[in-house]
């Protein structure tokens, strides 16, 4: 049992009947979970439904909660299973309504200062990387996100994906490698990048 994890302590309090312990758990994890699920199912409304369902399941399971890993490992395992089920469900997808779609402003490199250039470049690279991420197979996408963005260890990602650590190592590598190959020149350092941005 990981009793150093403050979330585990909150979950134990919730198990023992302290309903107020749920609030800080939700406040702490709802946003990262939404960010993760939105990237996985590529739809904000669906991601919100899955976040809600994840917390409903956590709450429903509170009385039989036995901590044997970090709370987040369990939480992401539930969310990942829900996302995988959602992705396998045959249905017509709604268009992607990502919350940051409206940040894709046109570039204005000619009059930009150097630091503005860097920021613009960083944002464009971020958007391109995100687009490439969304093209990856679902498990590569999940593995890379959980490792790189959520900072989970391979062991934790393995628990979330029900995979071995070796598989996670491979999934993360293939995901990163694919993005780097597909983006090519976009991944070059910023000082050699500006002219290339203009060419695109």
């Amino acid at each position, binding site marked *: 049992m990981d009793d150093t994890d403050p979330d585990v302590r909150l979950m134990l309090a919730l198990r023992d009947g302290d309903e107020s312990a749920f609030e800080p758990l939700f406040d702490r994890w709802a946003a990262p979970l939404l960010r993760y699920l939105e990237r996985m199912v590529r739809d904000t409304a669906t991601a919100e439904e899955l976040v809600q369902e994840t917390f409903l399941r956590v709450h429903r399971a509170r009385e039989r909660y036995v901590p044997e890993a970090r709370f987040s490992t369990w939480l992401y395992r*539930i969310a990942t299973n829900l996302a995988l089920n959602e992705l396998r469900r045959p249905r017509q997808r709604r268009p992607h309504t990502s919350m940051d779609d409206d940040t894709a402003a046109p570039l204005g490199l000619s009059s930009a200062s150097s630091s503005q250039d860097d920021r613009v470049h960083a944002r464009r690279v971020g958007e391109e990387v995100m687009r490439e*991420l969304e093209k990856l197979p679902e498990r590569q996408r999940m593995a890379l996100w959980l490792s*790189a963005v959520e900072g989970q260890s391979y062991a934790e990602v393995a628990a979330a994906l029900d995979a071995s650590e070796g598989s996670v190592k491979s999934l993360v590598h*293939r995901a*990163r490698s694919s993005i*780097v190959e597909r983006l090519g020149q976009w991944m070059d350092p910023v000082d050699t990048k500006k002219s290339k941005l203009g060419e695109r």
Partner: protein
Amino acid sequence: MSRERDEDHAMSRERDENHEPDGLDEALSAWVDGELSREAEAQLRATLESAPELHARAQKFRAVDEALRGMAAPEVSPEFAARVRRAIEEQSSAAESGANVLPMSGLRRVAPWAAALAAGLAVVFVMSSREGSVPSEMAEVPAATLQPETVDSWSDLADAELEVALELEALEDFEVIEQLEVLELLVAFDDDSAFDENTQGLGS
């Protein structure tokens, strides 16, 4: 159909995870993640000394991670937070009063018509099986497989819905019916047991 889809999925998962690894490049990726053992890291560092291009490669891997981390996280709107709180409260009060709550919020919306349609399908199936048009193995499903205690995951269903769902479980391989999306939804009730199994040892 869903079985074929599951098989396709399993095959694609196998292809995805059991490929021939590019040892050095994969080690470089694991190094970026701080996941190499001490020995493997020492070995990689020795290789890096004579291979500056690997440094550049590692830098690109890091750039991918930084780009992903740099994308703004969505904020949870107060409306959404309130909606989840309401759903939790509803679930709690339903549990206290002994009422049943369906597992997925989306399912909750379709449950009434799904249950009605499913009931109709079940009637058609039962009538068909009496006429001998159902494969014999389907008609001879052992009674034990239809007992509620064997499907704990459906304990959240209302009794009437549970009966229909249990009946439909036996129809899962019945090709004509299987193509109906409603059956997919009902089969999805099994998610809860999958979660119980899949999350065992992690916290529940």
